[in-house]
């Protein structure tokens, strides 16, 4: 998903779930910040590099794709943008290497989603924002994996946009080009995607690169052949999926606020949006590259307050100026702790499922202060808050 949903739609969902305007702003800022918290930014802030929640294109170009590099890439992308649906999925007639990647395929309503929402419980608003980003992306990025893999993430010329409200749809062949500077031409179904690279671990085969930005457009409805599905087609209905994502975010945030006792999969707060459903549906189905303006108007109509535009610089000076002992209590400090916690949890779950694709995971609380120095900060935060 992109800024229109991660920032403005998350604000609207948070407000509907019962958070105040100020709390909703903190949550939605954190949700959007997941898409910009890179090594480059963390280096500038002299912040823990393990808190990286994304990698810029230039960072990816420089990233090695040996075992260590692949583990690093997988940790970031699987933890925040392509949360695996089923780490124990069965696949017949394949080797372990393939099965490990197959098990990283993203999808909504997995066990890891429950874990993601649960670790945000009784935690900071920044943790809530991160959880909402991860939740939303499980819907948009379904069928792709957060690891560079040709045999999982590749697509081919069989890619059709389905036009029309109801069946039978008009099938329009999608033309992909590799032209990063040109905007997608939605009128003629011409989109930019990553270069076709048959090398298994090429960066071009990370996530939904081969499908371009299509998964991130709320209006898009399309069918294609994912490499892992052995020539079976999948139909991706973004308007319906994004609606579910929005309703599930409201449900999750009601749970995180304490209004609901448990968070369950496949549960959506549909009643809460009944009076706005038509408006939301209209925003989701409108063919436009960026729905920020529409979502912003919707959010401001809900709360009656102005929603400040997202600015990457907003909290940086606060973090830089804070003394070392107080950095963890700043807005970004709390975000970094929450991000490391999410990454630690997901990496541990992948590791304990017998999958080494995200690397090793050590339980520092049990084994002492061995390992990455950054994670000592996590332990200290846990001890302060009395969390497990």
């Amino acid at each position: 998903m992109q800024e229109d949903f991660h920032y403005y739609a998350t604000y609207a969902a948070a407000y509907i779930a019962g958070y105040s305007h100020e709390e909703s702003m903190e949550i939605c800022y954190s949700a959007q910040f997941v898409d910009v918290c890179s090594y480059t930014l963390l280096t500038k802030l002299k912040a823990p590099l393990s808190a990286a929640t994304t990698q810029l294109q230039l960072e990816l170009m420089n990233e090695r794709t040996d075992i260590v590099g692949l583990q690093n890439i997988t940790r970031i992308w699987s933890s925040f943008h392509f949360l695996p649906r089923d780490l124990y999925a069965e696949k017949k007639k394949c080797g372990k290497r393939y099965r490990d990647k197959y098990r990283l395929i993203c999808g909504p309503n997995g066990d890891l989603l429950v874990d993601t929402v649960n670790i945000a419980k009784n935690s900071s608003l920044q943790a809530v924002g991160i959880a909402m980003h991860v939740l939303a992306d499980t819907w948009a990025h379904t069928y792709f994996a957060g690891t560079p893999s040709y045999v999982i993430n590749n697509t081919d010329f069989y890619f059709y946009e389905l036009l029309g409200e109801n069946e039978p749809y008009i099938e329009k062949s999608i033309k992909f080009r590799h032209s990063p500077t040109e905007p997608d031409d939605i009128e003629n179904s011409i989109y930019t995607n990553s270069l076709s690279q048959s090398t298994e671990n090429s960066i071009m085969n990370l996530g939904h690169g081969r499908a371009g930005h299509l998964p991130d457009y709320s209006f898009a409805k399309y069918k294609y052949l994912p490499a892992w599905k052995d020539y079976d087609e999948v139909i991706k209905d973004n308007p319906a999926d994004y609606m579910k994502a929005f309703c599930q975010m409201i449900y999750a945030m009601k749970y995180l606020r304490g209004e609901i006792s448990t968070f369950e999969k496949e549960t959506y707060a549909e009643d809460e949006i009944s009076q706005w459903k038509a408006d939301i549906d209209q925003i989701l189905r409108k063919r436009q590259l960026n729905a920020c303006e529409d979502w912003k108007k919707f959010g401001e109509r809900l709360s009656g307050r102005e929603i400040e535009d997202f600015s990457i610089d907003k909290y940086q000076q606060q973090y830089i100026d804070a003394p070392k002992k107080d950095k963890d209590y700043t807005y970004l400090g709390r975000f970094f702790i929450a991000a490391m916690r999410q990454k630690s949890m997901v990496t541990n779950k992948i590791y304990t499922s017998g999958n080494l694709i995200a690397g090793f995971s050590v339980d520092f609380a049990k084994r002492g202060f061995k390992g990455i120095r950054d994670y000592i900060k996590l332990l200290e935060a846990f001890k302060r808050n009395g969390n497990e």
Partner: protein
Amino acid sequence: MKDRKRELRKSRSNLVDMGEGVIALSAWTILKFIMFSIFKKAELINLVKDELKGEEYPPFMYELAVIFVDVIVLALMTFIMVITYWIGKSAIKEGKNLKKGIVYVVASVIFVIIYADSVYWGIMNLINGTPSIFDDTASILVDITTLFAFAGLTISAIKVKYLGE
């Protein structure tokens, strides 16, 4: 019904891949001839001399004869390459469901026969002791690859036509 559609998509995808392979391999035909003309020029001249045994000509006449042969053969190779390119392109178009045809399939079958024959005689040459064992082995290997490409293209095209009905 679902399996049939899946098989059809798989066959179409294979047809596109084989079409692209055939186009790439068609370049080998010309490349092989150009390499032979450059590196085996002396052999060509000797071949011409053997053909004109008993008759003496100035040296430049033999070179001229070789050039003449080169031009004719190059023209023929280019023609074959154009045909091969057309077969590959037709296969790609049919694979992407843009155009249907049968002539390219027939042409592909002819190429299968030609390359099968080439591979057979190449192996026979090796068995009988060819003086240029490395060159001939490399040539056979590429011819086998091309044979498989055309055979794969033919099979995929037939499958697409059968399943598409």
